[in-house]
């Protein structure tokens, strides 16, 4: 018995000793948006770990949880997360409150290959870089080719009126034409924005001092949006993509990372005669660094690696959408993903959602009113008036 105890004690001591002496690789922790956005980045991790003798851990979160967890961690003296995946609309809120590290101060600068329009959301008024455009998300127009072939001779409508007419034609035949996105808050507001923009409306004025939701343009846009619903349906993201891909619905606004079989640019005008608008909405996923990261050097190395042209090009095969011209327009890219030429066009001429610190509040506030108007439990006038009043209370 004594012998066993001595052997066990020696083994335990050996374990502890080896743990102390072991040259543990440095660990970098990433918090990412779950889905294709995280998947493509994860593919690139092993090579970085090997080259830098480090270990990378990551957690994948939904949109809302990602925002909340980054914010909760920001109040700690030393953060749990080093590299953050960020939505463009969080920039102002996070930089105003010291969540993100200033990457310019750490020596990072953009090269000319990165599509200039995609960098704007990650740079502050003084030109300091806080976020790097990693995944070129910009709204696109998904469609079912067979249905468009059958009902419109293969021509995807180039105007919103055309979309409505085609939807109504399909609905009369028992097929859902246009699909609205379900989910009060960011999902339904973002889905509505291209229509609002096409009608000449927007959520805030140019200098973000006034809410512009209760305007004739917004009213026309919302009434049109409801007509689209009547000629189609309303689904969540997964069912929406499945419906368009399997032919139980014809058209919807989505994002390149969703896996739609066919997509093109979103109609830029209401009718042939109306003014053209930048209706593609940017929703790029960015990479940034936590200000309270204790491993800033390694985190910066990782950011530089993730933004490298070759690394970015390699993500295309796995579903990546780089914000680099060389990656998007490379022959190898267009050979396997010809649709990325459409994304390149949209990325060069998109519209940013308002860069204000209260944007998350804004969509969470307006979303339920928009939803109520679409569902018919509130009139268009009431939804816009009450939505406007509720959003005005958020203005600083």
């Amino acid at each position, binding site marked *: 018995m004594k012998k066993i105890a001595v052997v066990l004690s020696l083994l335990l001591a050996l374990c502890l000793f080896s743990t102390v002496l072991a040259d543990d690789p440095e660990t970098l922790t990433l918090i990412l948006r779950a889905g294709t956005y995280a998947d493509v980045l994860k593919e690139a991790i092993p090579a970085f770990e090997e080259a830098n003798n480090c270990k990378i851990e990551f957690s994948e979160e939904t949109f*809302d949880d990602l925002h*909340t967890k980054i914010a909760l961690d920001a109040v700690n003296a030393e953060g749990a997360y080093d590299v953050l995946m960020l939505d463009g609309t969080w920039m102002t809120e*996070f930089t105003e409150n*010291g969540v993100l590290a200033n990457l310019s101060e750490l020596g990072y600068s953009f090269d000319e290959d990165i599509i200039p329009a995609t960098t704007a959301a990650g740079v502050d008024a003084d030109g300091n870089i806080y976020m790097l455009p990693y995944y070129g998300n910009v709204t696109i127009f998904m469609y079912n080719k067979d249905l468009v072939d059958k009902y419109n001779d293969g021509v995807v409508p180039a105007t919103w009126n055309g979309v409505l007419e085609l939807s109504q034609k399909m609905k009369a035949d028992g097929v859902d034409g246009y699909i609205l996105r379900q989910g009060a808050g960011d999902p339904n507001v973002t889905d509505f924005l291209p229509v609002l923009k096409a009608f000449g409306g927007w959520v805030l004025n140019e200098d973000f001092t006034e809410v512009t939701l209760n305007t004739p343009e917004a009213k026309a846009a919302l009434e049109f949006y409801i007509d689209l619903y009547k000629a189609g349906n309303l689904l*969540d993201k997964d069912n929406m993509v*499945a419906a368009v891909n399997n032919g*139980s619905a014809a058209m919807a606004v989505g994002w390149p990372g969703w896996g739609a079989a066919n997509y093109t640019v979103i109609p830029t005008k209401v009718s042939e005669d109306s003014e053209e608008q930048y209706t593609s909405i940017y929703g790029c996923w960015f990479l940034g660094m936590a200000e309270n990261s204790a491993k800033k050097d390694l985190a910066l190395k990782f950011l530089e690696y993730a933004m490298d042209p070759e690394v970015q090009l390699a993500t295309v095969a796995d579903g990546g959408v780089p914000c680099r011209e060389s990656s998007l327009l490379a022959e190898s890219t267009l050979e396997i993903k010809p649709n990325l030429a459409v994304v390149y066009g949209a990325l060069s001429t998109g519209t940013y959602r308002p860069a204000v610190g209260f944007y998350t509040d804004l969509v969470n506030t307006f979303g*339920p009113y928009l939803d109520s108007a679409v569902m018919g*439990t509130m009139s268009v006038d009431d939804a816009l008036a009450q939505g406007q009043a509720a959003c005005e209370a958020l203005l600083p």
Partner: protein
Amino acid sequence: MNASIAKNKNQGFDQDKAFPHILMAPTILVMLALTVYPLLFTVYYSFTDYNLLKSRKNGVNVIGFQNYVKLFQNPIFRTAILNTVKFTICAVLLETIIGLLIALFVNSLPRGQKVMRTLLLLPYLLPTVTVALAWRMLLSSNYGPVMQWLVNMGFKNLSNYNVFFHVETAFWAVLAIDVWQSSPFVFLLCYASLQGVPTQQYEAAELDGANIFQKFWYVTVPNIKSGIFLCLLLRTIDSFRLFDKVNILTGGGPANSTTTITQYLYTFGIKNLNFGFGSAGALIMTVIVMILAIPYIRNAISSQK
């Protein structure tokens, strides 16, 4: 001498009295730290503009009753209260009736009670998130077997119909799932109470010529009354806190038709990091739950006496 004895007795009495308090002190301290301290902070924050991020720069400012005023002026919060009350009443009633009926049925089985008990408890043993995700998948318009079956049965117009996204069906769908999951809990408590009903009382009632309903009303109910009240109390509190299912299945929509108080607080308090505002809402909810729970607790205490 007598005075000395009396003094010692007195000292001994004090020590005896103090001993249980000393033993309980650590537990009481832990309870205070875990319940009273956070509650006091919640009360304090409810009177402030505390925002997790913004307050790092601007500090935490006391704003009096502004959060409460904002809450009661907000039509969505009022809808959330109504939805929560409506849901609680419907869920508690349905779950209690269904759970009790199942318990009576299983209790009347001559054999196989153990198997039935285990099978019936399965939904309650599943985590709420799993239940919500499973039902979301089952009722999905494109992936769900239920909707696919309906479409194949000839309901072609349901090909893109999702019960969680339409005002007419969303609330009732969430309610049905909650009833499916929580009725077994009521069943379990009622079944346990039924085990304690003396069989002689049924035999006596039978001799008196009581029919099945009279036996249920005059023998079963009085015996399991405290169990039913406990079910009502626990299900009321639990239903009032409904969150996971709503958050996963509907997110409070469509058109706020399934927004509950907790869902509202999550959207406008937690998601927006406005913890001051969220604290005010949480306190209002606590008060409503207490008001609802008091009659049950009183009844339970009086029936124990």
